[in-house]
């Protein structure tokens, strides 16, 4: 119990994210008897397969103190590529090509960001458009589409009640990235450049490596997400998937990552995405009009921000109390000594 309390105190953001997730889930589970079912869970996991990846990518970026606006465009590009080449080269090869392209795109962005010492947002706001253009070019400005649908059927086939090959793959990615972030020096470097860029550089970290890694991962996630979407629906639009950026960002922040960088983690990303999916699915079940969905997401974010701001203020208050407490502890005996001398 004390342990739990301690844990909560040490990562309040994550704790709050979990609380939020539980609340949203149970709300719908109670109000809508269709919600708490295996199928629904399955549907949620299917959504997770894509949004989760984006949420993960953006979480990493934010941990590194950056943000990748180009993620949606990158995913769209990957989707177009995979759909275009599946018929000719087979899904496997096509998927590999698509993901390779997306990853390399991310990698190059990472390199430039580190080399130019600019904020990612500055560069990616440009690449966001650039990659759309490329995607349009790759799709010849048409909606590309598969002729053979065996692959789509396979990747969204139900497994172990809740899962599909797609969602299992994504969960795998989560696990690997999670291990990477927590148990390798490269992961720590990413936390470092996010937590305090100047200090990290002064302590001899070469900005290029972590930056390239982060954006390569981000690109990879975008690519994989695009591939899954493309193959699942069997079609792809160069101008599609714009919503991924916002949805992913929302997920990341609801997952409790701190914009200041250096804090947050993979679990948060997962929780955040799930929360968004719970909300989304639940609202769909209640046949909510589209704009209401946006409104609720807005409310959710507001709750998060009010909590975060609140906890910041509380934190400073806490620190102050700590100082005062320490003082009071030392006070009596030191003052006593002082009195002695004066007498």
């Amino acid at each position: 119990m004390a342990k739990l309390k301690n844990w909560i105190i040490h990562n309040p953001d994550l704790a709050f994210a979990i609380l939020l997730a539980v609340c949203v889930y149970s709300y719908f589970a109670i109000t809508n008897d269709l919600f708490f079912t295996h199928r629904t869970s399955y549907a949620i996991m299917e959504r997770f397969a894509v949004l989760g990846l984006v949420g993960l990518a953006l979480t990493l970026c934010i941990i590194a103190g950056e943000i990748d606006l180009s993620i949606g465009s990158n995913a769209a590009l990957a989707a177009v590529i995979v759909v275009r080449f599946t018929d000719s080269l087979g899904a496997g090869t096509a998927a590999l090509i698509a993901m390779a392209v997306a990853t390399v795109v991310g990698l190059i962005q990472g390199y430039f960001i580190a080399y130019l010492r600019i904020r990612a947002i500055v560069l990616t706001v440009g690449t966001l458009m650039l990659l759309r253009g490329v995607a349009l070019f790759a799709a010849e400005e048409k909606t590309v589409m598969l002729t053979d649908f065996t692959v789509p059927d396979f990747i969204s086939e139900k497994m172990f009640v809740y899962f599909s090959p797609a969602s299992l793959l994504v969960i795998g990615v989560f696990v690997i990235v999670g291990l990477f972030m927590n148990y390798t020096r490269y992961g720590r470097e990413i936390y470092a450049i996010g937590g305090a860029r100047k200090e990290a550089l002064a302590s001899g970290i070469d900005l290029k490596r972590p930056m390239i890694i982060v954006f390569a991962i981000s690109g990879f996630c975008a690519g994989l997400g695009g591939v899954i979407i493309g193959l699942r629906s069997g079609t792809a639009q160069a101008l599609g998937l714009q919503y991924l950026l916002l949805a992913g960002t929302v997920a990341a922040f609801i997952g409790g990552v701190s914009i200041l960088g250096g804090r947050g983690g993979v679990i948060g990303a997962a929780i955040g995405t799930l929360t968004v999916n719970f909300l989304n699915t639940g609202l769909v079940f209640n046949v909510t009009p589209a704009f209401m969905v946006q409104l609720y997401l807005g409310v959710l974010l507001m709750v998060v921000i009010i909590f975060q701001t609140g906890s910041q203020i509380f934190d400073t208050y806490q620190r102050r109390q700590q100082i005062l407490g320490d003082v009071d502890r030392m006070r009596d005996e030191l003052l006593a000594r002082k009195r002695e001398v004066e007498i």
Partner: protein
Amino acid sequence: YAQKKGSIVSFNGPAGEAYIGRFIKGIKGTAELKGFDIKVYENQFNQAEQDQQVQQVLAAGVLPDVFIWWPSDATAGLGSLRALHKTGVPVLKINQLPNEADKKYIFGYAGPDDRLRARNAGYMMREAAAAKKAAGGTSFNVIALSYPHSYGGYGLSINAFKDAIAGSDLKIIGDVDEGFGQANGYKGAAKLIASVKDQGIDFVYGMDDAILTGGIKALEEAGYKMGTDVIAVGTVCNGDKQLIEEGKQFGTTLQSPLHEGQLAIKLVEEYLETGKLANYINFTPNPSVTKETIETTALKGYDGKLYGISELCSGAW
């Protein structure tokens, strides 16, 4: 819970889109009237999201008697369509003409005919051109304000329009595809004008009235007198009624979302009763509307009521 006459689930874009807003009113109203249970699922017009949504709705495990399905794009929606079809529930496709790929998954189509409305627009412009010629006009240059070329409807519209004006004096000298809606219509037109104005602009064809409305603003700003210097023809009547009344827009071809919705329900009813449709493809009528006919145009809805132009049209009417 289909205790009533039957239950319908409709997937379509957001009511935030003026046109779809009317469409939803249409299906809801008529379904109500005919005693159907209807659920309308909106999605931000975005296929990937609709696919997810279909997933979720199916996950609920409660199936209706019919699906009404409006893909965000003629071809992109195939994934959703197949998912719907797998449930064994019959699917009626809306608004986007069926293509080879999805014919085998749907029992019919209800909605507009992009080609028909474009063709009618073409014919109207022909008339106008003829009149102008009779009045001694000599130049007949047309600029087209198009949907994005990456959008399915573009090909259908532009080709039908070209067919319609083929053999007349009209000739297309420019085509810009800035995007949907008034803002893009304006931006696109402004640039196009700059590039072709010294060839002379006499006619403007808007793939829908929203785009055209923007275009007309751009032309006016460029100093053209609409209706005299330049004759504008649009379609869909999702633009600005007043432009037609003022004669700034020569005409449009009515395409009523309300009507489209009602037609959909009618077909569902027909299918549920007879197990099939009299005809597979069912178009909403596209009467042409001009300044003269604007007040008199009216259509009998499938609910038997007679609707005037302002109920039929979307946009600023």
